[in-house]
């Protein structure tokens, strides 16, 4: 079936559409990353870990001198505090870690000497009335940074590459890697997108097709249900549903063992809320299409020859509406990713770990201070994926449904 489709006219039309092919490649790349994350490429702990000073700009961008000096001072301060607890020095020093960076395994005296040297330079530097405007102080700042760097154990080649990758897009306010958080969020987004879109299209198609196919009261109930649901403004419904499930704890027993799921802390409320609103689109479309297909001769012939109704539904109608499901899947995928951002901002979405929504809502405070790396990174990560899906949807609509407005 797939092979046949690849040789068909619509496939040729699709592949002639160059942007669509690019979009497909982009989506595959995102999927690959999502799978890699799922297999442990990036763990949630890593995204929550402090890897350096806060609000470090990406691409090794230069910061204001003042901030550089302060970042050094913070490290000096932490090491100094640890050194003041000789009873469990090892443990105290071990706690100081920035991602892969660990405090160097040197005798405490050496460390103390480094720290003291550092403070000396620091004291000189803070004497200056305006650090930022004085380029003559730059060598001193660099020296301070070098000193601070010596406190840490040198990284192997591979490790320093990894560290550079993590710092590539800078750090957020808590010094966490924006890169890792952005990449991890790909998984979250794709998970939310795929699950919601899949369930919604499934429910919508089944309900839509049965409504049209069986007619009568089934049709009335389905129409009533979707008119009703679509008469509540979408976000209000989302919010109310998310509210209804927040804090809920589901208790059931599995194989005799009692299990309780703290639903409020999972993504389940998000899925329920999104699916409850998203199935309407595919349902309408599939219902319309089924009504059309039902009139076709071969379907009527099949009905006349007495095939089971369900058989006809599955055999003739659903395959003929498959392209519409595909288009709707793609549309809903976009919708889910974008809704996640809004729900997360309202505190009703992702609860643990990063997501683009979490990143964007957290970046509000940074933007006021003129730091755009986090919002920029999350937006670009999201833009590329959503854009790819938009282009893909357009191409699919062009190929399968040219009269679509």
């Amino acid at each position, binding site marked *: 079936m797939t092979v046949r489709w690849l040789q068909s006219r619509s496939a040729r039309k699709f592949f002639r559409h160059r942007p669509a092919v690019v979009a497909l490649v982009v989506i595959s790349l995102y999927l690959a990353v999502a799978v890699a994350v799922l297999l442990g490429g990036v763990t949630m702990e890593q995204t929550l870990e402090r890897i350096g000073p806060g609000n470090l700009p990406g691409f090794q961008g230069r910061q204001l001198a003042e901030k550089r000096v302060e970042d050094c001072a913070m490290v000096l301060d932490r090491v100094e505090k640890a050194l003041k607890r000789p009873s469990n020095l090892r443990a105290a020093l071990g706690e100081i870690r920035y991602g892969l960076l660990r405090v160097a395994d040197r005798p405490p005296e050496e460390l103390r000497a480094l720290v003291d040297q550092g403070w000396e330079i620091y004291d000189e530097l803070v004497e200056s009335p305006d650090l930022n405007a004085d380029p003559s102080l730059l060598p001193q700042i660099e020296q301070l940074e070098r000193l601070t760097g010596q406190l840490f154990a040198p990284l192997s080649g591979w490790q320093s590459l990894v560290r550079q990758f993590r710092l590539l897009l800078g750090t957020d306010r808590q010094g966490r890697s924006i890169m890792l958080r952005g990449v991890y969020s790909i998984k979250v987004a794709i998970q939310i997108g795929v699950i919601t879109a899949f369930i919604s299209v499934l429910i919508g198609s089944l309900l839509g097709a049965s409504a049209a196919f069986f007619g009568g009261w089934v049709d009335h109930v389905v129409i009533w*249900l979707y008119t009703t649901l679509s008469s509540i403004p979408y976000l209000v419904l989302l919010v109310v549903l998310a509210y*209804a499930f927040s804090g809920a704890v589901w208790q059931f027993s599995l194989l005799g063992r009692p299990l309780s799921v703290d639903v409020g802390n999972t993504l389940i409320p998000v899925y329920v809320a999104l699916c409850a609103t998203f199935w309407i689109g595919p349902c309408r479309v599939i219902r319309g299409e089924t009504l059309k297909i039902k009139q076709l001769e071969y379907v009527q012939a099949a009905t006349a020859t007495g095939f089971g109704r369900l058989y006809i539904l599955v055999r003739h109608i659903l395959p003929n509406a498959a392209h519409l499901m595909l288009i709707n899947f793609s549309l809903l995928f976009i919708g889910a990713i974008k809704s996640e951002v809004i729900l997360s901002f309202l505190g009703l979405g992702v609860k643990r770990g990063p997501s683009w929504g979490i990143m964007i809502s957290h970046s*509000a405070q940074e933007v*006021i201070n003129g730091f755009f790396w986090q*919002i920029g990174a999350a937006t670009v990560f999201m833009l590329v994926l959503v854009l790819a899906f938009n282009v893909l949807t357009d191409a699919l609509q062009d190929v399968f449904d040219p009269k679509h407005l």
Partner: protein
Amino acid sequence: MWVYIIRRLAYNVPVYLGIILLVMAALRVNDPIYGFLGKNASREQYDRFAAATGLDQPFLVQYVRFLGDIARLDFTTESWDQPGISVGQLLSTAIMPSLALTVPALLLTTLISISVGMISAYYRGRLPDRLLVLLAVLGMSVSFLVYIILGQYFGAFWLNRWLGYELFAIAGYKPGLIHWPRYCLLPVMISVIVAMGYDTRFYRAAMVEETGKDYIVTARAKGAGQAKLMFVHMLKNAMIPIITRVMITIPLLITGSILLEMYFNIPGMGRRLILAINAKDFPVVQTFTAVFAAVFIVTNILTDVLYALVDPRVRLS
């Protein structure tokens, strides 16, 4: 015409009954009283609260009572979170700020998007059109929240620093027309920009669809000029998809205004609803949802009436 309006009204009654039913049921999935009092509330506390709020009654009784309240526009139920204040009081203070955002946003979005859509359709296939389509697709792919955050930064912080005085307030709200531009114009502009991404594409498609119609060729054959074709012949025909689109835009704007109200601290209905949800303030959530749905249904009926006004085929059938 009146018959038509009454028919539309009658059609929407079961829909509204259904909305209330679904909303009420959904809000009871997770016990609202435990939600409010906390999981560790004692049995007596619970029972007393339930009796006081009428939540101990059977669902059907509650349903009928609530419907009765809505039908009589009786919003005297007390808020849980702010004892002594009725839902109606909250509602009446929240309506104006919300309208001050959504109504101008709707008007501006529609006007601007139609114009841009028409420009795009006019230059169809040429550079301005391609540029506009590209911008629209890009614009659609960015989250609303990003627009809000950046809009606030550049529209308020940055602009104010650059101008040296406060043109737009960073957040907040004051009633009155003189204060409107200061507090509401920036949020309205943000929501217009966001909605434009979706709408211009649609209006362009609607106009392009019209260009190919036989009656447009007829009109050209009569000697009609491009402007006459676009603004008279095509626009009036495109009114039907346009009205449909406006109807689709309304819930989007409501969504948008909820976010904008939250972000810009505007005490409208959306902000109230979200605050109530965070405070587990059950009666406010229930009533506000019902009101949102009612507003929405009324706009639906209005659109149907507009259809009939624009299209003689609907009116006379």
